[in-house]
């Protein structure tokens, strides 16, 4: 039995809920600090670091490390690639919902 065609097309990086949550949070803003993402998404520091690295490696997220008031601060922004990937992912999800409802 073959899965629905749209499921196969889903972006495997975004089809993981923690990463999807991070990208969604970033999609609505210019940039978020590590702390803001952690509080918004509700991940532990360790988990968030791991997922941010995966997203950065995929080119979906750009991470910048700076110092604010002498304290290190990590800021993440959604790259153009990441934004396109999220839009594509949402299109696929909507297509799945439509397809199943249409049966």
């Amino acid at each position: 039995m073959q899965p629905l065609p749209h499921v196969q097309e889903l972006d495997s990086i975004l089809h993981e809920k923690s990463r999807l949550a991070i990208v969604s949070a970033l999609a609505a803003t210019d940039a978020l600090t590590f702390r803001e993402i952690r509080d918004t998404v509700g991940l532990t520091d360790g988990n968030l670091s791991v997922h941010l690295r995966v997203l950065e490696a995929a080119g979906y997220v750009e991470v910048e490390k700076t110092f604010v008031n002498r304290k290190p601060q990590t800021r993440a922004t959604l790259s153009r690639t990441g934004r396109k990937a999220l839009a594509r992912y949402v299109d696929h999800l909507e297509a799945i919902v439509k397809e199943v409802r249409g049966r």
Partner: protein
Amino acid sequence: MLTALRPSDGTARSEMASVDQQRAEQNLELIRTLMERSTRYEYLSARAGLQVGGIAVAGAVSFHWLSAADPFLFGAVWFAVFWLSVGVMVREQVREVRDAGVPLWTRPAREIVRALVPAMTLSALLSLHAFSHGRHLELPGVWMLCYGVGALATSTYAPAVVAQMGVAFMISGAVTLCLGPAWATTMMGVVFGGGHLLLGAGLLATRRRPLRPLKQGAI
């Protein structure tokens, strides 16, 4: 086992489709929730609320000795209250975001300021009109209505309590206009003073409370 799960290909495929649809809907909901959540300005200062409330109460109490009927005194007191409140708010917000280690001029912060501008401008224009026509004692109700509209306009970006405050201010504004000029300064103390004191106390009670968890299994 596999054969037991396969009474017919049609049934299994339809069950799988239903699981896919469920997952797709959950993920769409997750995207929506996270996008909304990340645009919310979460750093309202409780200290600012309490101080602004105190300043407004002090302004209202000053009319125990001053004549509210005198447009110059009335204008001077509330002008001072307004700018003092703005100063306190800015100082406390800066402190709040610095403590949280986040930037001050974020997109939600900018959007909140932008949402407030029309109501504040309208309020300033109506104030000029009222003062020039000797109807300044009607201004407290107008200010409350404008402030309420401004608070409601920020509701996309501000915490829910601000929208609730907006509604309360609009109702209070209507009541103040109905009560008439005799109640102008008392209502300013009760509504602007009491309202901000309540907001500050509410923020103090809920501060640092973790965000409501996402629906179970969302992440």
